[in-house]
């Protein structure tokens, strides 16, 4: 219980045996009394064992669906088990669970809260087309939200019961759909989105790609997903 609400932390994990146990232990240490669900997204390694040993509830997908697929499962679990708040945290250790109560408090007057990097602080340096994509997205989405949204692709996010109910039935599985399309759909349906500044830690494993071709493809895909989500029913 945080602030009188039943809170579930959902950690989507795909081949994260090196870091998932530490993340689960840290969450359970910092936030006693919250549910912790690790969604093992078809991992080939021992992710589910490490997570279960660390004390998390584990839901294992039979094959890899991607973050969006793992998260819909998480929201379904949260919805069916009557949680008031579902919070997504990455399995690579870059999100600090001590910010979770701040996110829950922000849900008092919002339906969806994004934990966003401070401008500059805890930044992983992005350049070129990937940076443009993120800037364009934050301009467009901020305007739609009537609020400042600077880090629209953050994987640190909190949903209230109303949003959890929507996500239990609908959550896109496509790459980038889980970040961009979700926000557009929420805003088009008059859900309130706000952001809370958080400091991100360096990832324990993995770095974003800096290849110019890949980041151009990223820009194109982001633009496509955004345009599609504007016209979709």
């Amino acid at each position, binding site marked *: 219980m945080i602030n009188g609400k039943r809170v579930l932390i959902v950690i989507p994990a795909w081949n994260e045996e090196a870091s998932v146990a530490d993340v689960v232990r840290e969450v359970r240490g910092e936030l006693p009394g919250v549910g912790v669900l690790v969604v093992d997204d078809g991992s080939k390694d021992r992710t589910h064992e490490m997570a279960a040993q660390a004390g998390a*509830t584990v839901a294992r997908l*039979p094959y890899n669906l991607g973050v969006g*697929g793992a998260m819909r499962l998480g929201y379904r679990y949260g919805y*069916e088990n009557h949680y008031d708040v579902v919070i997504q945290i990455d399995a690579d250790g870059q999100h600090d669970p001590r910010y979770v109560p701040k996110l829950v408090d922000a849900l008092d007057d919002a339906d969806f809260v994004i934990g966003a990097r401070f401008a500059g602080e805890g930044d992983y340096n992005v350049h070129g087309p990937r940076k443009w994509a993120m800037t364009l997205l934050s301009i467009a989405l901020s305007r739609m939200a009537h609020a400042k949204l600077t880090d629209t692709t953050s994987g640190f996010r909190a949903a209230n019961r109303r949003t959890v109910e929507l996500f239990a039935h609908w959550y896109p599985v496509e790459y980038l759909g889980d970040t961009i399309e979700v926000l557009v759909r929420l805003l088009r349906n008059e859900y309130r989105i706000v952001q809370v500044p958080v400091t991100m830690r360096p990832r324990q494993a993995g770095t974003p790609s800096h290849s110019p071709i890949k980041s151009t493809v990223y820009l194109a895909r982001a633009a496509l997903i955004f345009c599609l989500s504007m016209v979709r029913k």
Partner: protein
Amino acid sequence: MKLTILTAISGLAVLVFIFELVRRRQLREKYAVLWGVVGIVVIPLALFPSVLNPLSRAIGVASGVSLVLFLAVVFLLVVCIHLSWEVSRLEEETRTLAEDIALLRTELRERVNQ
């Protein structure tokens, strides 16, 4: 003359193949009907290609054969789009099933542990 025999035999072969697939329960009826109709339309056209000439002249296509080719391309394109749509739908269905299995296994484990 030889060409008409070749195309007629091809059409017949497709018909036999479809029938065999249905007989072995390898093909759903809706697809069997689709391809069966294609075969049935193609065979007479192959034997008497001139029957379409009046129609093709009426809509401004030089020969019946060109008209058939054009229609075939359009038809195959539509079939391909339909199959992509079916695959998308199937992926969504298997995704829901995968979620259901994961939820059931989680629930089962929680009950065993209690």
